[in-house]
């Protein structure tokens, strides 16, 4: 029976185990060394792995990713940390142009096995520049993979998969979950494969597609709907690119209805693509329009009143499910 770990501890355990297993894995980022990272993710690791495998970087996000790419080209597996996902905008070119296109422009003769860890998401009073969910930009760019675990188990298993993957993987770890998501996490190599969704709750009436911090309120809403005799199947995508079409289609074929819930804004958030794909490929299975419940098209405000107004939660998800059930 595995111990319980927090999401944050699970991330650390994945890093530690991977670094012990493979001397080519190293960590770089701001304050990741002796300090142990802004959130404490890498705490204690500096002692074991030393300065050259836990590199405290200058405030240079572009260089953090660029250096990672260089090291990856020589067979290393760097795990780069953005202190907050919001700052990934400062490393944008290195990710979308340098890393994402390298294998292609090398004619397949090289790969870029880097992981960029990006603490994302709101509900922690972070305000405009410490709450963002920038996954859509990277899902849109060919050549990248994108994951976003919602449980401690997946946090560990997906990070291991990301580190071992030969492609650039953007790993979104949700700040709200760091200490709040706790659960059984096996020691050792329990890999969560990239590209495979998890059905968190089975149901026959509505498919709810979500990920990250929205999984818990979605499950709560699903439970409420069960009281109303509507059985909601909750699918945690886990991998956002490539998302698990098979699992999604299988569920929607069964339920004929789908709600997408995400914390990212609506316009061109991942929900748009999921909806469009269902439209194109499962139109005849749909008894109702695929609906989206997301953050509105706005920024992430600091005020708790404002932030709560924006965040989808069990109540708004419940309402959306009811509307969809009643369509």
């Amino acid at each position, binding site marked *: 029976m595995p111990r319980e770990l927090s999401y944050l501890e699970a991330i650390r355990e994945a890093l530690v185990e991977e670094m012990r297993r493979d001397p080519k894995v190293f960590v770089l980022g701001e*304050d990741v060394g*002796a*300090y142990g990272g802004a959130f404490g993710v890498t705490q204690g690791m500096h002692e074991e792995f030393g300065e050259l495998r836990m590199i405290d970087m200058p*405030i240079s996000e572009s260089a953090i990713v660029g250096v990672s790419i260089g090291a990856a080209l020589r067979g290393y597996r760097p795990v780069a940390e953005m202190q907050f996902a919001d700052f990934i905008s400062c490393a944008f070119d290195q990710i979308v142009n340098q890393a994402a296109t390298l294998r292609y422009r090398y004619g397949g003769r090289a790969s870029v096995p880097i992981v960029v860890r990006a603490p994302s998401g709101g509900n922690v009073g972070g305000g405009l*520049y410490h709450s963002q969910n920038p996954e859509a930009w990277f899902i849109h760019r060919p050549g990248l993979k994108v994951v976003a675990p919602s449980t401690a188990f997946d946090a560990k298993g997906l990070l291991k998969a990301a580190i071992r993957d030969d492609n650039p993987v953007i790993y979104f770890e949700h700040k709200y979950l760091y200490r709040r998501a706790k659960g059984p996490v096996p020691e050792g190599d329990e890999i969560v494969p990239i590209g495979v969704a998890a059905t968190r709750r089975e149901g026959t009436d509505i498919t709810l597609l979500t990920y990250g911090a929205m999984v818990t309120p979605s499950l709560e809403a699903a439970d409420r709907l069960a009281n109303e005799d509507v059985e909601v199947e909750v699918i945690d995508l886990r991998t956002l690119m490539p998302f698990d079409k098979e699992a999604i289609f299988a569920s929607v074929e069964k339920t004929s209805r789908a709600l997408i819930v995400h914390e990212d804004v609506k316009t061109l958030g991942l929900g748009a693509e999921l909806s469009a794909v269902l439209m194109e490929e499962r139109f005849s299975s749909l008894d109702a329009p695929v609906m989206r419940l997301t953050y509105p098209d*706005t920024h992430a405000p600091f*005020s708790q009143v404002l932030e709560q*107004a*924006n965040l989808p939660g069990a109540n708004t998800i419940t309402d959306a499910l009811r509307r969809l059930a009643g369509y």
Partner: protein
Amino acid sequence: MRQSGQPALATARPHRNRLLRRDVARPHRFGQAIGMARSIGTAVVSAPDGVPSAGAGPDAVTPRGMMPSIKRTKFKLSHQQLLEMYYWLKLIRAFDERLSTLVKQGKVRSGVYTGIGQEAIVVGTCFGLRKEDYVCPLHRDLGTFLMKGVTARAMMSQMFGKATGLSKGRDSALHSGVSELGIFGNTSMLGANLPVAAGLALTFKMEKTDNVVVAYFGEGASNVGDFHEALNFAGVQRLPVVFICENNQYAYSVPIEKSMAIEDVAVRAEGYGFDGVAINGNDVLAVYQATLGAVARARTGQGPTLVECKTYRWHGHSEHDKAFYRTDEELAIWKSRDPLTTFTSYLEGMNVLTGERLTEIETRVKSAIDDAVEFATNAPDPAPEDAVTDLYA
């Protein structure tokens, strides 16, 4: 470029003992100038209302033994002005200290990055500015807002995320600005204020006014690409901008020697074709004097200057940071260089600050802060609908 054939850093940068901080290890250089707190400004104000003679100002820290290139600008400050400076130092200190308390009490949820210990920089740089001049502060420079005319109420409301704050609750800290007062409010992205500062300065150049922009950044932020692009552009266009580096020795947990292979950020100015100077950032009159010189150059079309202010933050990076990465001894040394205490002694020694005036100032400060906290506490939250307004003009 170096003068000798020696590898530049071979001797200067072996893996330095983390306990042996530079200012402790090298009292003969930086420590000296600011360690001797009593000498602060003594020669600057030759007589209470007198005109100090050029060249007699407080010793700037002169990296690599060079003389700072900024002319020792003469200045004259009345008793009244000196006391005003003192008031600002006190007010800003008190504001940050109250914020720190409010965080501990759970009343402020915002990330709070105090500038306690660094107040001389904000006060020294802002004191001589015009309303039309622009400031582009970073996260520890709350005082620039106050000195440029934002009320303590508005600033406190901003920290509380209230509707009465500058951003109406959209963000806290210094992520908002006031164009009418010449304050640019940056994002969180370090260094991203500097290209904007250059753009503001460009408009002053276009208009042939002699207004200036004062832009702030930490030594850590000077490693960001935007720093480079902004300073280069400012240099090539000879823009009226003064770049103020607040070198407090740390970027979050990372000491300067782990983030750059130089001791003085000021040397970077040379790569952009203008002058850089490193000064004692804990001496409000030294900062004032250096800024005066740099501002005068900017106003007269002579382009940018980089003024590096050596200083130290007393608190952690944020109020949540226990700052285990530094020693108590180091902190104690820097507390002995408190810009406020030293300026108090100086003003007392000059008989500018009497007991009566001190009481008066402390009362003013306390009531301003109390009032601000009360105001912000009682201020309304923004309306939920405002989460989606003010996105587009």
